[in-house]
């Protein structure tokens, strides 16, 4: 006598994403911490020194946050107009920032008042940065000039006017104190050498450049602008390596992770995309608003994203230690010892083993199915928790009822409340390709059973109307897809070489008479 076989729940794999090590790595972040700033966050820069504080430029202030603090530990507020491009020096002790009025200010990280002010730009300065020797500051401005300033004396060392539009991107070389890269709205990226005082390389990006980025080896240069991200090989004289088009709005910022130098790009389309070393998108962070700035802390501990609505969203990396503390706090039940008690007993050689029949544990719906209580089983499967978090269980019970030929009985004789439950479930899942087939039968049976009484309940009627809309839309979509498939088929057919087909067709014809002769 066999025992009752429980209902088999089919777990169909979801199509699409494949799990790789990269996705696992980038998924391993906690849910973001949201910090509200006064205006759009235009620049985030991490200090290269140990506590890795980060400066956030937003509106007329620059706030410095600690890695785990949600309140600023320091703020620089002495700006009369919007501040731009606050960035640290290589030793993390000085901070430089441009502003809307054209002034460049230099702050000591501990002080409040600006140590130096560089005046000279006639229009807003959007990007400022230290050169790698730490004694010079380079700035790019809307007045089409690029200027280099001496920090000790606060004088302008040189001014280069080669761009023909606003300069909105700047990246100093870390290896050579005389090199820096600028990107401008005139669609070009230029590499400047301070020793010659002019550009040594010019790349055509094709769109207004929003951000430039140098790889640590400084052989590769990333420029973003428009919907494109382009990688240039500097060692080959600025040859374009790849052009990526994964965003559907302007890509505003790019940065590199410190582990494995993975490229991250943020865009106005509210997504941050992570690329692997062959420039395929491996992960995607979603944000609430258009992204203006982004930075990754050393060791990828923190991903900070600044958005147009003034929200700074900070994601911290999950660690094993956190998980352990969480679980240890949560555990209240009996200890592990209780569960393994007697289970790990190994009988000795001369012990006589009395085996106990294993009790079969059945789920509630299985118990009801076992005793042929079909309506109750369906009710159990349609309970709130099951139908929302495990729709496949509900569908499995529906399939089982259908197999037993009792689905109609189970659906019959329901009141408005339980019928709405079923219809809600249908509305939510009927177009899911995994479930659509059994759920369509359910829909058919419901219509058959309740056709006479439908008009009595406005709630049910409204739901059916919605169901009709949903199905209509789905049908249209299917039709469109079929059309596309047809177009593709003709394309493929015209692409395949003609000769081969002819050869294949000719073969049986050739052999026919020969065989008959044999």
């Amino acid at each position, binding site marked *: *006598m*066999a025992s009752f076989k*429980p209902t*088999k729940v089919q777990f*169909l794999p979801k199509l699409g994403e494949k799990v790789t090590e990269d996705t696992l790595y980038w998924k391993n972040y906690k849910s973001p911490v949201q910090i509200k700033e006064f205006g759009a966050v235009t620049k985030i820069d991490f200090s290269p020194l140990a506590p890795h504080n980060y400066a956030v430029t937003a509106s007329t202030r620059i706030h410095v946050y600690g890695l785990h603090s949600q309140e600023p530990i320091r703020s620089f507020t002495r700006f009369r107009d919007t501040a731009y491009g606050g960035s640290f020096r290589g030793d993390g002790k000085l901070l430089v920032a441009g502003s809307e009025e054209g002034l460049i200010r230099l702050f000591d990280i501990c002080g409040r008042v600006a140590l130096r002010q560089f005046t000279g730009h006639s229009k807003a300065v959007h990007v400022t940065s230290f050169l790698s020797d730490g004694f010079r500051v380079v700035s790019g401005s809307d007045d089409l000039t690029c200027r280099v300033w001496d920090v000790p004396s606060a004088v302008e060392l040189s001014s280069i006017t080669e761009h023909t539009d606003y300069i909105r991107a700047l990246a100093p070389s870390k290896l050579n104190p005389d090199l820096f890269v600028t990107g401008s709205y005139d669609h070009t990226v230029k590499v400047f050498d301070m020793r010659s005082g002019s550009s040594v390389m010019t790349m055509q990006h094709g769109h207004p450049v929003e951000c430039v980025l140098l790889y640590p080896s400084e052989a590769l240069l990333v420029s973003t602008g428009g919907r494109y991200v382009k990688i240039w090989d500097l060692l080959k004289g600025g040859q374009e390596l790849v052009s990526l088009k994964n965003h559907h709005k302007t890509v505003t910022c790019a940065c590199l992770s410190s582990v494995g130098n993975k490229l991250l790009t943020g865009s106005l389309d509210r997504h941050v995309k992570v690329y692997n070393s062959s420039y395929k998108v491996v992960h995607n962070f979603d944000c609430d608003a258009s992204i203006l700035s982004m930075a990754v802390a050393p060791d990828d501990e923190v991903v900070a994203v600044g958005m147009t609505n003034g929200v700074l969203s900070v994601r911290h990396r999950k660690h094993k230690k956190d998980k352990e503390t969480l679980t240890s706090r949560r555990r209240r039940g009996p200890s592990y010892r209780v569960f393994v008690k007697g289970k790990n007993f190994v009988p000795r050689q001369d012990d006589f083993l009395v085996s106990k029949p294993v009790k079969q544990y059945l789920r509630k719906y299985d118990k009801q199915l076992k005793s042929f209580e079909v309506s109750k089983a369906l009710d159990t499967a349609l309970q709130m928790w099951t139908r929302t978090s495990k729709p496949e269980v509900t569908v499995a019970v529906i399939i089982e009822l259908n*197999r*037993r030929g009792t689905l109609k009985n189970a659906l019959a004789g329901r009141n408005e409340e339980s019928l709405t439950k079923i219809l809600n479930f249908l509305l939510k899942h009927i177009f899911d390709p995994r479930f659509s087939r059994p759920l369509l039968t359910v829909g058919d049976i419901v219509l058959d059973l309740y056709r006479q009484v439908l008009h009595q309940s406005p709630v049910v009627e409204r739901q059916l109307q919605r169901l009709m809309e949903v199905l209509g839309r789905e049908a249209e979509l299917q039709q469109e897809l079929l059309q596309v498939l047809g177009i593709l088929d003709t394309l493929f057919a015209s692409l395949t070489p003609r000769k081969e087909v002819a050869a294949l067709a000719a073969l049986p014809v050739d052999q*026919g008479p020969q*065989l008959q002769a044999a």
Partner: protein
Amino acid sequence: MNEVLSGMNVNLSYPAITTERVNRFVLCTSGDSVKVYSTRTEEWLHSLQGHTNQVTGIALNPANHLQVYSCSADGTVKLWDFIDGILIKTFIIGYPLFAIYVSEKHEGIVFLHIAMDTDSKKEGFQLVAVHLPKSAEQEVEAKELSAVSSHISPNPSCTAFGREGQYIAFARNLQLNVYFFRKQKTYSFSLKATDKKGAKNAFTCIACHPTDDCIATGHEDGKIRLWRNFIHKKEYTYSTQHWHHNAVNTLCFTPEGTNLLSGGIESVLVQWQYGTGNRKEFLPRLGGSILHVSASSDGQLFCTSHSDNKITVIESSFKVCGVIQGLVKGDAVLTDLMIDPRSKALVLNGKPGHLQFYSLLRDKHLYNLDIVQQEYIYEAGLDQFEVVKAAFDIKGYWLATVEERGQKSADLEFFLKLWSYDERTQSFVLNTTITAAHTDRIISMCFSSSEETTMLVTIAEDGQFKAWCQGVDADTKQDQNFWSCDFVGSYHNLKPTNCSFSADSSLLAVSFQEVITIWSPDTWELLTTLCQPPGVIRDLCFGRLSCSKYLISTTTRNLLCCWNLLTCALEWSTSVEVSKLQSDPLSENVAAFSYQSKHTDLFVFKPNEPRPLFTHKNVCSEKIHRAVFVPREEPLNNCDESSQWLNRSQLYFLTQNMDLLTFSTATEEDRMLSSSTRLVIDDSVAVTPFYLLLGKHRQQQQKLNTPSHQAADRPQQPQGSVTITELLHTPAHVLPPASVLCSMFVSSLLISNTGVLQDPLRKEMESSEQEMNSEKEEEDSEGEMEACDSQQELRVQGSVDEVTPKLSKAQERELKRVRKTDFSWMAGLIASKP
């Protein structure tokens, strides 16, 4: 050479349990014989053979509980001694018989169902009483027939004897008739044609209470009616009970009349308490639908026979205590016949949703493998998943199955499943389930036969063939242990009909309607096409060994073609209608079954010559669609020209009547005969409780061994059984102490294959004999004896916990005295050891 029916090819119908001291037997009809099983060991003991046609009924002789009557369609009633399997008497009636009933009160009279003389085809059955003449002859003609009633139901369970044989009740359609022997009158009671709801009211079975005037009847709609007070024609009453949702197939009162047992298609045995209204107990999920229930005369055991060729033995406490399982017969065998390469067992459809493994060597059901893994609902007309295709790879490590549901309706559901063999559990474990392998029904599939890589090819009605592989995923570069699709191929959108791999797996042949396409599985390149119109290709098979350059195909237009793959030309063709083509994996031979003018012929040929090696006309009258070559354990050395093709493997085939047939050679038959006689002798000796214990134990061992070890196939016969019987029959007070006997007894049970272990015993024997002769040598022999005693002790420690204590001098002397008394029977014990 001739054909031999193989397997328990039989409907185990109408079982009867007998009680005989402690041992019980189950008797059941099976084809033209009655089989006798032991209820304790579930072993087949012997069969009562002698009838020349289907045995239709058996009944225990009420006058002698060791005898049984059997009736057959050949028109004879035979009386048997079923313990020894001896035919006592044959009564020739002269008409085909369909059921037999006996009663204690009517000694020397049997009641039989016979077909009406005029038109036996129609539903005209007669119940007749036959007086069996008393004479000493073996064969007697019984001519004293007196009709009790004509126009009775053809269903044998619609007739039953009432209390103490006072009346006999029989029903037909909507009428219940009771014939009283004393009054010589028949009362009839009829029901209305339909109830209010239109339920069917017809009678399906009858049982009479053994001590009370009560008749229980089962009906088409699942109701059970209990009729009382039917002695008065007008004032009869009945009460109705309803649990079964389909027809009640069988009813049976327990001998004391306390309970009523009923069974039907639901496969639930229901026990109704008599007289307490509606109290009942259930025993669900017994197997196929219950056809017949019977109870032993002391009420200790019940047994049910099922539609899937199975008998379940149930204790009176409603626990299953034994299952006798034959070759499971479903409605149809949908899968091919296959051989599990590991256990060499025959694999085919078993229980619904299962594959059964059946050992042909031992003619025994091994186990059922659950493929569908869903609860089977026993309900008529319900469309449920069935295993329709299955295939093994060459090493028996992979099993692929296809299950299907909705053959009749439009929305077809099917799953392709791949099972891997688990060494630890010695069974197949589900590895991959593929939900939508194709967009339409899978027609056929085959595994590639190479040793290194396993590949499965499926062909489907959607015009595609797909190759499935287990291996590396292209995207993630990770090793997967599940199967995925490797290649999809099609040919001019034609519907494929069959597929086959060559012996070395270097070629794949897929037939598309009239065209055979040859593919290379390594590159998936279409190598060539072969075509011989007209006629759609039905079967495909590659030649083996020296004939591996040939490809043989059969078409629907009666053509058998042999292609040479080296020249890509037709080698030869012949016009013959072939229903099944099967190639022998161990030789070049190919067997073709041809169905022409209502009978099947068999041709065996080698692909390199169009002349058949062996022909057998008129194998059977039905069409044959399933056949398989079963490799032999060891090849026969048969020089006979006509049976040489059977040397390496044996051909089994399945007829449409679900009979499994095979060809056997003369030498084999001799062997079979000798083995069966030996079995009978052993079993007839061993009807002691001790043997039963052994038997049960032995059977368990077999079960453990079956999948893995073929060498330990034949059960070890208990040795020295004569000694054991003597031991157990000797009164306890004359036996030596148990501690003395125990060690010897245990060692006699040990299977010794070295001479070393026996030596001490023999020495002991010698020494004791010497003792009797001369007292002088006592010291010597004593030393020896002690040595052997300690050896025995050591041996005993292994098996028995208790260690025999060291004997004192006085005890030893006592022991010797005891030994001197009775040793003659012990000689048998030693002599019987090999």
